[in-house]
């Protein structure tokens, strides 16, 4: 049984700024990390490996230097890592990206029975949350987004029950396998690599698939296959908040005001 975890190498966005001229992220000199949501996706896959003995393959599309991130995935316990890297894949939007990832997953599913694809709910650089569902559509998997718990996984009867974290409510859904889930941070706590695993990961090869081996239509991938054009990126203006009470002269009253406010906004339940 195969579980595929999709990961993306992203710039550490706590450290990036936006170039006001080109509307793109200034990535120069910024360290790359594994997209934080994807660390949870990988962790969930590894937990399934621990519990059911499934094979975990990590797939990423990106430039050759994304090998570092895949090696990290190997050090955490992934069985195999595949980097989809080709100049032809470059400049892709979420649609073109999901086509490439979907093709890779289909190829993997030819050799081993696919049970589940797990993605992070979104990346911290693009923030679109579209690639996961895009893959599901292209591979023809049931998309289950925003999962904060796998309640049950029945590999024999090919069914999965998950909890989806929606706004102010949870939704419990059951679906047929193979499925694709995108996960939120609350689903788990990622593990830390042991040193023996890190050392082993350094010796494990990361497979690189280019379009020669994948054979996708060049008009469907990369910049050519991307209908999206970014016109502007900006930090949204925030409306200034209000100051309530007088903390210096009336701390008790002000604290009460704050509590009332939080309760009225349903952020606090008494």
């Amino acid at each position, binding site marked *: 049984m195969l579980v595929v975890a999709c990961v993306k190498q992203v710039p550490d966005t706590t*450290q990036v700024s936006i170039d006001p001229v080109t509307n793109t992220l200034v990535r120069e000199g910024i360290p790359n990390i594994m997209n934080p949501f994807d660390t949870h996706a990988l962790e969930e896959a590894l937990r399934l490996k621990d519990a059911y003995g499934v094979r975990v393959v990590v797939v990423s599309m990106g430039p050759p230097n994304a090998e570092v991130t895949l090696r990290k995935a190997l050090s955490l316990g992934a069985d195999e890592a595949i980097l989809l890297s080709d100049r032809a894949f470059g400049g892709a939007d979420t649609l073109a990206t999901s086509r490439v990832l979907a093709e890779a997953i289909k190829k993997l599913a030819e050799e081993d029975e696919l049970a589940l694809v797990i993605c992070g709910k979104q990346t911290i650089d693009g923030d679109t949350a579209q690639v996961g569902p895009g893959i599901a559509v292209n591979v023809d998997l049931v998309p289950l987004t925003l999962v904060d718990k796998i309640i049950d996984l029945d590999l024999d009867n090919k069914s999965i029950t998950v909890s989806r974290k929606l706004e102010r409510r949870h939704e419990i859904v059951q679906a047929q396998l193979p499925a694709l889930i995108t996960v939120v941070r609350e689903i788990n706590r990622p593990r*830390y690599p042991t040193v023996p695993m890190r*050392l082993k990961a350094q010796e494990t090869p990361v497979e690189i698939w280019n379009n020669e081996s994948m054979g996708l239509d060049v008009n469907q991938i990369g910049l050519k296959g991307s209908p999206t054009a970014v016109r502007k990126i900006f930090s949204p203006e925030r409306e200034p908040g209000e100051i309530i009470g007088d903390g210096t002269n009336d701390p008790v009253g002000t604290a009460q005001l704050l509590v009332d406010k939080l309760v009225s906004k349903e952020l606090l339940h008494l």
Partner: protein
Amino acid sequence: MPNPMVFALVLVAAVVLFIWSAVRRFSLLRVGRPEDRFNDIPARIRDTLVYAFGQKRVVRKAFGFNHLLLFWSFLILLIANGEFILKGLNPAISFMSLPAVVHNPIYLIFDLVSLIVLLCVIIAAIRRIVKPPFPGALTADAYVILGMVAALMIAYFNLHGLELASGEMIALMPISSAVGGLFYSGITPVAAHPLITIWWWVHAIVLLGFLNYLPYSKHMHILSSIPNIYFKRFDHANTLPRETFVSDARFGVESVADLTWKDLLDSFSCTECGRCQMVCPANLTDKPLNPRQVIHDIKINLLENGPAMRKGAEPKLALIGGGGEGSITEDQVWSCTSCGACMEVCPVFIEQMPKILQIRRNLVEAKADFPEELLNLFENMEQRSNPWGIAPSDRTKWCSLLDVKPFDEDCEYLFYVGCAGAFDSRNKQIALAMAMILDAAGISWGILGKEEMCCGDSARRLGNEYLFDQMAQANVELWEQKGVKKIITMCPHCFSTLKNDYRQYGFNGEVISHSEFIAELLTAGTLKLAEKVDLGKITFHDSCYLGRHNDIYEQPRSVISAATGRDPVEMKRNHSDSFCCGAGGGRMWMEEQLGTRINLERVREALDEDPDTVCVACPYCMTMFEDGLKDEHREMVNVRDIAEVVAMALPRQ
């Protein structure tokens, strides 16, 4: 007197049994890994004389004099007992055969020393009841030994009392004479003879019994502590060894086989005096860690597993996490602040702290098993090279209003700001104060700015040696490339790591703490102060990594005196006895969920002196004191780093 043939048989049997026991125990040291403790023989002999024969650390505590007396009395009585044994084998061998002018003082000394031993033993027994050295010190083991020693002395006095009273022996032995006069006055030689034989055998059997009891009790220290002192470490900072990262390597300490033979000898040398636990910040705030217990558990584990492990078997009793005697729990391992207080007080130089940190290595590196709050810390250090996880591009924000020069080859000193000075809002003020001081003294200095990287102290103390190894290599490489020769630090953790740990990575530059540097500038007159700063009554808190780990005690005090015109008052525990703030050993980044808070314990001790200002020389101590004073609702007491105090005294520009 005994039948020499019978005694010879008993003696041979007892000695053979003793040698067998001792060899069996000591051969367990071979379970441990090799370690070179054979260098610098003259210094080893010197320290053995000072600390083993001079008992320098034993007598640091008043009651230690009792032990000093016992120790030297035992050495003298070794001669008396040598004579006793030889005389038992051949009655002709005796000091009596020497002229009276020689044998009289000898017997007089033996007699008086025996009385001293008896008194010391009685005092020790009473002390264990009235004021035990640590809770739970009333062990049967202790009383068996004290009882045996007392019995030996009583037999000695009776034996000689009888010989003197019956006229078998004429010697100047006032105590034995008094015993003879009291119990055996006017006894005839014939009547005395069987009694002499009985007391002789009592003495012999207790003596040989004592000998054979040693290897099986905590009193094995009589055999092991002198070698333990001889093989002690000279590196005061107790720098942990480097690891090699190859796939078949073992990481840290998982079983007694991962400890070195010296670690195992430590466990045989513990006398359970409890001094370590009475200074341990974790133990004194009701956390599960007790350094004495850690050493005891290693010994029990070795005794349990050692014989089979020598034959190649896997250990049956887990050293970590097994629960019960012979196992160390993870809570114990994570409670250590690496303050080094336990090692500072141990009379026989047992090294408790490095063993605990070595166990951490195994938990982190081999098992990735650590308190969950450390996950963020490790990733922050690995990805952003600082514990806070703030963007490295923010490293120069503290000096954005100053004109600080980036370090280049023209700079004499690199000011290694450290993560606390660069990222922590309170401690940025210390970095600013340092910049002002360096400029005022006309020092040629610069910073690495955004290129500066974390030293990795917390990673190493928390057992993440793999991460530390990468950080240390990257730093040393950067400094070599930049031509860094002299480094000033404002954080004792950076200081000790750069000065001691980085030697292992080939960094041989000079590393100077800001305490030393400012003190030297003031002494040399390079730094001139305009006025005395009035901070009221000041007390100074010693940082563990400055004081105990690097022997820097007087410099920060002299800096405070110079800047304020008054000497800081001392807290109850100061200098090498200082009590940790609770943040060392990576504890800065961990929740303190067990027991009470270490920083509050120390803050209350500071408040006992009723200070207006608490002076520190460490950013972690700064944080812990500020937090603690808030918790105690005593924010009116200021916490100042010594650099801030000096900066206040600089001439206004």
